[in-house]
């Protein structure tokens, strides 16, 4: 799925850096969903819709996990020196920093996350 995202962005003529940024954002969002959305190990589908053009990229993630808004979840404190930081919890920092516009909604039983980046 990540290769498909990157390839689609490149195929639409977006810069390599933008394609890699979107791949990274998608990896972090999907990792987060797999880790936290479900209490069990059952398989749950995640739907991703991607639209890319020269001007921008839009990704919409839809999953039926527990309600979770990654745009408002508390972020790991980055002030302490690395040696004293708890490891992990950096994915949300990356997602929020790398996109230009983001929206979250709970639609019925689904989390819907829309992320946009202008090329």
């Amino acid at each position, binding site marked *: 799925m*990540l290769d498909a995202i990157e390839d689609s962005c490149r195929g639409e003529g977006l810069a390599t*850096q933008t394609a*890699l*940024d979107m*791949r*990274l954002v998608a*990896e*972090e969002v999907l*990792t987060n969903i797999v880790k936290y959305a479900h209490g069990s190990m059952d398989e749950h589908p995640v739907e991703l819709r991607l639209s890319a053009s020269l001007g921008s990229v839009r990704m919409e993630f839809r999953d039926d996990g527990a309600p979770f808004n990654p745009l408002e979840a508390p972020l790991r404190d*980055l*002030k302490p*020196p*690395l*040696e004293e*930081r708890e*490891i*992990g919890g*950096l*994915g949300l*920092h*990356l997602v929020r*920093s*790398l996109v230009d516009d983001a929206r979250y909604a709970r639609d019925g039983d689904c989390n819907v996350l829309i992320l946009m980046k202008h090329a």
Partner: protein
Amino acid sequence: MALNVRIAESRSFSRTLHLEGRLDSETAPLLDGELDKVINSTAKVLVFDLADLEYISSAGLRSIFRAQQAMAKRSGRTMLVNPQPQVQKVFDIVKAVDLGTVFVSIKELDEYLDAMQRKVIDGE
């Protein structure tokens, strides 16, 4: 794309890990295995040569930070050399500014390690 990891014993007290490709949730476990060898050795300096690393995600950061903390616990140092733009951007976002010393070239790193080696020899 996969990840290739090469370990070089550049000096008796240092190990350089040259990373090529992509460091993400799929490839980070491979790096962790290689890092354990360095962490469990007597090396005092761990160097990540990132000249050919084109992509890093939070899973990769986790591996590097874990190694950095393990080295620090036994008074070792961790250094980065040659981070490429995507990788540098990710380090900047998570404010990894105090991750050892970042060198822009192998030459600069070599000069630093030479000086360190002289100090060790003089100290003996």
